């Protein structure tokens, strides 16, 4: 045993993963039971998908495995031995690593320092960077990543930061990786790369538990799936016999239609609502576009191509150095968010944590925040009216079970996204700018958000949608602009194919 222990440390990454069995796991927050009596086992070296609707308890389950939170009841066994995992440290010492969606890296440190954070090789008490470098090179080989060990983590694109997080887990000898929605923030190319790495790791004996709302992606990747519904374990079985439809049926408990709804034609007499002419900021150059009443314009492009920055510039959130925005023929004061909002522009930003929500405040206050004056009297908030309107909006975005008075930080990721979307629905805008509208939401909620967008357009809102999911852009938009290096480089109509759009986004 002792020798084996030692070996475990020396060649941690070479060892095979343990069989994990959890039984009777329960977890409550106050009166809400988030997980009840969850029992499942994960075989060594498999890729195991964990699926369920928003709020089903997927993240909670992974966090329990990773020691980030502790279960109220239930037991856990590794290779038949009962273990207690109360802290992330415990989990790591058993070879289990949690990679949550909010990456836990130190932005000011280098890649190398982050990977070996707290686990530096040392001789005596002196750090031994050379040994770390060697180890790093081995890890790169193992994963096939291309990363500069000296690069500062904060400056890397999100996809590479995630790679750093994976290396960090492997450097600690992780044999089980718990990945919570790793692909939600990635673009197509990065996604593809990540999936390759996951497969590669599994081949070398690492177990991967993965949460994702992309059904095809999961079906193409995993060996087995576990379905959770309302905190209950529904089934764990081979993914082989499943189709997206059959998974959804299990997740939701009924049939759902999750295709993007038909987008009605824009009436030919519909006038232009928003006209952007030559808009230039630090990040985008010479952006010109027009959207008519009821029209949905999609913006595609790679991460970093300036899609989000275009929306920020149009909204007046980024300082512009040239060009202007007109709403219904009236020019907006440049770089003035308030003027934009007054003219009827709404922005649903990309990052709900950094740009969208005030995490310390309740759901209702967040939803009401951007339209406070509409429900005020002499500076006082008309709380009763706010309460009813917020409830209506919660219902229309399907914020099930979330009370308006509940802290928004306690909602599941997908439900936070729905609340963010709801923020601008209290008073339907003339122009809606949406950045990644369905990031992290489940398939049913996604369909809901899509139909809300289509419906808003049908009622006369001009919509601009940015999304890394090409299907979303293709399915929702009447027209598509493709961006590259901060400029609009191509324009397609509704019948564009995936390949055409991809090619123009990638062209040098």
């Amino acid at each position, binding site marked *: 045993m002792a020798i084996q222990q030692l070996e475990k440390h020396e060649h941690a990454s070479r060892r095979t993963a343990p069989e994990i069995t959890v039984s009777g796991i329960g977890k409550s927050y106050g009166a809400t039971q988030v997980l009840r009596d969850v029992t499942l086992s994960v075989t060594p070296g498999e890729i195991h998908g964990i699926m369920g609707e928003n709020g089903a308890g997927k993240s909670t389950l992974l966090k329990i495995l990773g020691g980030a939170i502790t279960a109220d009841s239930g037991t856990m066994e590794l290779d038949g031995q009962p273990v207690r995992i109360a802290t992330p440290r415990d989990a790591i010492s058993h070879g289990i690593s949690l990679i949550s969606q909010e990456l836990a890296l130190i932005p000011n440190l280098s890649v190398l320092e982050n990977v070996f954070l707290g686990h530096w090789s040392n001789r005596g008490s002196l750090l031994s960077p050379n040994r770390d470098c060697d180890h790093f090179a081995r890890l790169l080989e193992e994963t096939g990543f291309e990363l500069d060990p000296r690069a500062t983590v904060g400056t890397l694109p999100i996809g590479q930061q995630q790679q750093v997080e994976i290396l960090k887990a492997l450097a600690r000898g992780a044999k089980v990786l718990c990945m919570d929605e790793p692909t939600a923030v990635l673009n197509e190319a990065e996604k593809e790369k990540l999936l390759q790495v996951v497969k590669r790791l599994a081949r070398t004996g690492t177990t991967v538990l993965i949460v994702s709302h992309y059904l095809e992606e999961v079906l193409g990747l995993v060996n087995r799936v576990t379905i959770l519904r309302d905190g209950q374990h529904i089934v764990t079985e081979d993914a082989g016999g499943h189709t997206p439809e059959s998974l959804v049926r299990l997740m939701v408990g009924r049939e759902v239609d999750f295709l993007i709804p038909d987008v009605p034609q824009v009436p030919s007499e519909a006038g232009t609502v928003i006209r952007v002419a030559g808009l230039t900021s630090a990040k985008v150059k010479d952006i010109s576009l027009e959207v008519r009443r009821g029209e949905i314009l999609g913006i595609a492009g790679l991460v970093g191509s300036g899609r989000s920055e275009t929306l920020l510039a149009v909204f007046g959130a980024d300082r512009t150095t040239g060009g202007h925005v007109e709403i219904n023929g009236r020019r907006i004061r440049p770089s003035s968010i308030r003027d934009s909002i007054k003219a009827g522009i709404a922005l649903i930003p990309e990052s709900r944590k950094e*740009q969208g929500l*005030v995490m310390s405040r309740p759901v209702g206050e967040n939803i009401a925040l951007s339209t*406070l004056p509409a429900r005020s009297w002499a500076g006082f908030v008309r709380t009763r009216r706010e309460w009813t309107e917020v409830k209506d909006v919660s219902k229309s975005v399907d914020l099930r079970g979330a009370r308006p008075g509940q802290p928004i930080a306690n909602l599941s990721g997908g439900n936070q996204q729905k609340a963010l979307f709801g923020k601008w629905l209290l008073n339907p805008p003339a122009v809606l700018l949406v950045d990644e509208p369905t990031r992290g939401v489940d398939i049913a909620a996604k369909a809901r958000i899509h139909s809300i967008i289509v419906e808003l357009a049908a009622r006369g809102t001009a919509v601009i949608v940015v999304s890394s999911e090409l299907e979303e852009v293709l399915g929702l938009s009447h027209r598509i602009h493709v961006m590259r290096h901060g400029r609009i480089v191509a324009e397609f109509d509704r019948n564009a194919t995936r390949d055409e759009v991809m090619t123009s986004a990638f062209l040098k």
Partner: protein
Amino acid sequence: MTTTSVAVPSSAGKKFNLNFKDFGIVFGLAAIMLFLTLNTGTFLTGRNFINLFDQAAVVGLLAAAATLCIISGVFDLSSTATLAVSAISGVMITQHFGVAAGFFGALLVGALLGSITGLIVVSTKVNSFIGTLAVSIIYRGLAIVITGGSIVAPLPDQLASFQTWTWPSLLGLTAGSVLMLAMTVVLGIVLWRTTFGRRIYAVGGNQEAARLSGIRTGSIHVAVFAISGLCSAMAGMILASRAGSAQPAMAIGIELTAIAAVVIGGTSILGGQGAMWRAFVGVMILTVISNGFNLLHWDTTYQQVVTGVLILVAVAADGLFFRKSTR
């Protein structure tokens, strides 16, 4: 699932769920008061309570203002420097134009200095902690310049009316205490029910999200500093009224006591969270402890130790409960 806490949807739409984390501090205050009631014959007397509130008036005003500042994500270390300059200005105006004009002038100077502090912090984008520290040194310097470093006092025949704020008024409480209570209630309502209050929370909780929601975050901060200046001036009036004079070094360090009271009450120094009643409870705890040391004839040097420990306990408890609620 037995329902021990009944959800009562109030008109505010909030669910009132009594729990220890939210109200633990109130029990703390109650425990100290109970202890003093049982161990002294003098604590639970009207006279002592009038005295208690009077002692709490100055810190109470500063803590009410500090609550707004901290929730909106800034600190105002210049508050007592502003207090000194406004009190001095008030006395000097009194000498020339009478007591009423003096008080009015003091408030005006306070609000003005607060706005200037706010504009400086917002426009230079320096960390408010450092920014207001620098500003406070400037204001103290200013106070020395206008007084020539000496004590200023109203004319002898003005003194009686200048000391209005020490007079008994409502329920026998001194006018200063009533002013403090009134301001706490007013600012509490502002925070709780107005759109301005909502914006204060939003700016402190997530400045970028607030900005993208169309909130002028700079204006909110300037307004908060202006209110802080106004409250400082009120506190200055009360102090000057009590002493019958004002001087450049008055109330040094009390800005930190006020921040401590806010923190003891349970308002998070990270911003975006907290409430006005918490500041009031924090102030009362500090005041009652100091009162207790007097009544029990304990060595007051230990009072500082107790206060320090209390601040640590309050902050640590916050962290502990916070961790617990997310684990």
